[in-house]
């Protein structure tokens, strides 16, 4: 597209949110330097924002509200509220949902094995994660990012990169690794909300019984590197839990997302 070609015919679809990203990118680029197109797009976007109001107002049933909060009770991360209460000292501080309700907590390893089995059914594999692998990450442990990326790029060049994806609800973790490497790159998204003093922690396991701690991190969406004691290929799964800020030596709960590393596919 030259600077003299104004993509005005495509602005409505962009404003209405139906233009594929690949087609939207050059138009956004054009608008960065073309004020008339930008102004027209912004006007259309303002109109589009009001279009939901065109729907006649209808009330959802009260049962819908109840179902929402019932569902939230099963959400990972819920009940691990350890933050100072906003509402005053009368607000209870719940350490964990299970202990607060007096339930018996089964040994972690069995719950991990169950989660791995459940996750296996939901494993999605594909090359999409490769795109994530080159995005930025903000974990403190990312000191040698360039060297690590080079390893991944090199493996990608050889057609040796492998990706495994675990999904659970709206959460997703994509693990990309090069053969023999003692580090994997993971891209996470849609993670449960963290309360103050809590962090996500990654774990590797070979047998579902013993767990090796890896990176502790705070961002619920983004990429980071996961160092392991042995080659990542030798592990059966990677899982994520919520732990105290400094991390833990053993997972305190079942993982909310498990990536079955045995179900990896090669990215070509």
């Amino acid at each position, binding site marked *: 597209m030259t600077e003299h070609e104004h993509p*005005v*015919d*495509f*602005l*409505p*679809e962009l*404003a*209405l*949110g*139906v*233009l*594929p990203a690949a087609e939207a990118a050059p138009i956004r680029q054009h608008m960065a330097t073309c004020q008339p197109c930008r*102004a*027209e797009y*912004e*006007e*259309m976007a*303002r*109109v*589009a*924002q*009001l*279009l*939901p*109001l*065109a*729907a*006649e*107002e*209808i*009330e*959802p*049933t009260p049962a*819908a*509200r109840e*179902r*929402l*909060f019932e*569902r*939230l009770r099963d*959400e990972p*991360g*819920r009940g*691990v*509220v350890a*933050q100072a209460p*906003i*509402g005053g000292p009368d607000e209870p501080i719940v350490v964990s949902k299970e202990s607060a309700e007096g339930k018996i907590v089964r040994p972690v390893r069995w719950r991990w094995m169950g989660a791995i089995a459940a996750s296996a059914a939901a494993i999605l594999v594909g090359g999409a994660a490769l795109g994530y692998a080159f995005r930025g990450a903000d974990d403190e442990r990312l000191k040698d990012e360039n060297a690590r990326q080079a390893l991944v790029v090199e493996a990608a060049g050889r057609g040796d990169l492998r990706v495994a994806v675990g999904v659970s*609800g*709206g*959460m997703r973790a994509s693990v990309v690794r090069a053969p023999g490497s003692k580090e994997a790159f993971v891209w996470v998204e*849609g*993670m*449960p*909300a*963290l*309360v*103050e003093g809590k962090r996500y922690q990654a774990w590797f396991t070979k047998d579902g019984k013993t767990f090796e701690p890896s990176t502790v991190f705070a961002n*619920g*969406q983004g990429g980071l590197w996961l160092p392991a004691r042995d080659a990542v290929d030798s592990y059966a799964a990677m899982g994520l839990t919520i732990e105290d800020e400094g991390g833990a030596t053993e997972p305190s709960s079942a993982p909310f997302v498990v990536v079955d590393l045995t179900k990896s596919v090669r990215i070509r």
Partner: protein
Amino acid sequence: MERYRLAEDADLISAIATGKEDALGVLYDRYSRQCFSFAMRILNVEGDAEEAVQETFVRVWRSARQYDVTRAGAISWILSITRNLCLDELRRRRRRAPEMPMLDDAPERAGEDRTDLEAERKIMGEQVRAALKSLPSEQRSALELVYFHGLTSQEVGQLLSVPAPTVRSRLRLGLLKLGGIMQEKGLIAID
């Protein structure tokens, strides 16, 4: 929950990000009707619309930390989640059984007592609907098929047996005309 009743949307979302269910309850009470109406307008099936609303607020719960107040107002953010979920559902339906999208308005029901804010929103809704209805039918159909049914110009063109560029032109004219009407009514400010 009372402590959050008067909280700003952004403060509610911050509280949700720290695991405050009460804050989510207030946000739900504030916007679930708008979300549900919007979902019904797109899906036209009550059960599916309720499911979309539930999923919307679950995603708000999970993603509250990622909400960026500088990028979008809370309701825009929430409705964009609802719309994406509804359009995904429409695509699933089309894969199962291709059908002609319906352009009729969703059924209207009597509302309950409204606050001033809700009354204002209702008036705005009426104005937006009136503005849409004032468009030439071919522009209105194109806009509704794209916005409420998530079709591309290509797909609308196939449906209406007109070339895609014609659809794009109708969309553009329709949106610009709507912009003019909304500006006249003071619904939007045009720079």
